[in-house]
């Protein structure tokens, strides 16, 4: 049974299309200086924001892999 359209296709769409919103968002908030990379606290926030993206991606990879095993 081909489960690609039920597993990895939605995964790629989610994080591909999501990236089109997420990374321009990061760019915009740094460009407008609302996230000011000169401030230590804001540098920490940048790391947290990037971690969040990877965190959810990792969660989905694990869940899909476990389901397909």
């Amino acid at each position, binding site marked *: 049974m081909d489960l690609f359209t039920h597993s990895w296709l939605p995964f790629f769409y989610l994080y591909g299309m999501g990236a089109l919103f997420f990374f321009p968002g990061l760019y915009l908030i740094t460009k407008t200086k609302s996230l000011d990379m000169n401030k230590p606290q804001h540098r920490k926030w940048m790391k*947290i924001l990037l971690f969040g993206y990877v965190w959810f991606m990792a969660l989905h990879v694990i869940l899909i892999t476990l389901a397909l095993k």
Partner: protein
Amino acid sequence: METFHNIGTTTDWIVMVVYFLVVMLFGSYFGRYTKSTSDFFFGGRRFSWWLITMSIVATGVGSHSFVKYSAKGFEHGISSSMTYLNDWFFVPFFMFGWLPIIVYSKVRSIPEYFEKRFSPSARFLATILLLLYMVGYIGIGFLTLGKALLPMLPEAVNVMGTAIDITLMRAIVVIAIITGIYITFGGQTAVIFTDLLQGFILLFAGFMLFFIGISYLGGFSTFWDLLPTTWKLPLAEFNKPSSFNFVGIFWQDAVAGSIGFLFMNQGLLMRFMACKSVNEGRKAAAINIMFILPLSAVVVGSAGWLGKAISVVSPDIISPNTSPDEIFVVVASIITSPGVFGFVMAALTAALMSTVDTLINATAAICVNDIYRPIVTYLKPARQEIESEKDRRELFVARLASIGITALGVLAVLAFKNFPTVYEAHGYFHSTLTPPLVVAIFMGVFWKRFTPAGVITTFLGGVLLMIIGARFPGIFIAPFDHGIEMNPARPYSYIRALYNTIVCIGVGVYVTAMGNNYNRFVDIFKSRQSGRSEMVGLTAVVGLAFALALFGNSTMNTQVLSAVFVVILVPGIVGYFVSYDEQKATEGLTSWSLDKAKIMFKGSDINDQVGEKVEVVFKQEDERENIIRFSKNDMERMSANVGDLVYLSDKRKWLGGLKSIHSTYGEIHNEDGVVYMGTRNIETGLFDKGRILIAEKEM
């Protein structure tokens, strides 16, 4: 489809009643801290991130409820969790765009932002759209509550010899009365603390149910092996079935829903605004979305997963034909013992009530702020009134508004009750109502060139194009359907969000890009002597075109042409009648000028030097204008100057900021470890004599 009545025992009902009484007493205790409209709506902007994080659990879990996710979990498996794991994409915009702007601009509601950023007419339209959204959301909440409780109720009750059938709507009316009474006399502080308690209980009850269910089935591996592979996958099938598909739900939930929830859910925003600072609000949002939402996904969906597993192994215990919206109650009643079932149901219904309470409170805030105050100002512009009297009057109006909104929420149920599941009703609702406001907020915050003409045309033209799309989905929405089959009964419940968002963005971008042409158009009319009367005539014609497209009593081509006519001419009309100073309107109100927003918030230049926190005890002195005074040494340790903003709170962290104030540094004295303040600050901060307080510079 199999439906149920009379599930549960007398013990369960006793547990539920006791639970509700305890929760209401808990809320009422904290309701006594409500002294003003600021407390009623925002809890006095004083709370720590952890308290807000937990209080959001009940709101988030309640609104994305046990009922609807268990239903989808039962029908489709673990992919019911996907809506809880797709909210991160817009977090940067929220944390560093919208959140600081609403806090620093000191707006009390989203429509107020529209007036500051654009114009009163933009605020008027935003208020209408937002009220529709909020009342609809309350309706969904009541519908869910009714569906959750109906299986526990008898089919009829005997009142003085007359048998009265218990229908969904009748159950909802009774629930609405109880909910309305609570919120009317509580306020935001009561709601925050009730939700805090319920946040913990919900997670506990949800996980307890999950573990009891796993044990009922004979262990996790048995449960896992019973589920078909497609039920284990965390994301739905890409584009089918039409009632639950990945791509439709991505646009409806991950895009429109997430932005709607973060950017225009006034209830949630008020929670973040109740945080002691913007940074605490960011922490609350980050922890909630990253960690609490994934846990909540298990809590709300697991009854459906367990129900599916039980229906595979014992279809005689749970029929595969069980009504999906009733599966949570059915599973909970089967796997738990009397009393425990009552506790689980109490936690569920109380959480739903929390959601509805929060929304009613938030909608009342909009009514006071965006309807009542502007009307009072318009009718009596020069009215002089003592602040405390004004506050008392507004608090009364807020409470009346809460009652009215509760009634409207019940009526809104009628619009949603015929959907097969609450999930689809909610999806349809989100796809339809969020795009215009979401697009307007986004463009307003991040695009300085976005003007009143842009926002008003986005509202009017966007809504018309959305309505036309809904009338002719096979023509307008089909090009965006990603291969999803159109269900004629409810065409494109989810993917319509993509079409709706695109038309709203399209209108906003078109008007902004054509800004200079419209300026020339306005100049021509302003230079003509008869310009004003010509513009009034044009407005009447555009009004007719709007009505033609809105009411749909004409051919599709006529409706489309009317909508295009509206989109083309409204910017010119708005440009003519609405005065707009871009420099003034964008200062501190877009993400491009957040530093300016901070300065406006503080009233003077920002002091960004990092200082320490200082422990002090308070001493009372004569009342002064909202200042508190520290010693020279303490000021130096905090790197603070006279006129900077200070946050002072009780040292006991578990209070979460309940006993705290925001104030301004006054002139210095010489007693280290002592803060001098007047009676009003002591009362507002709820400070206890002799207790150690922590002072920190806010900005």
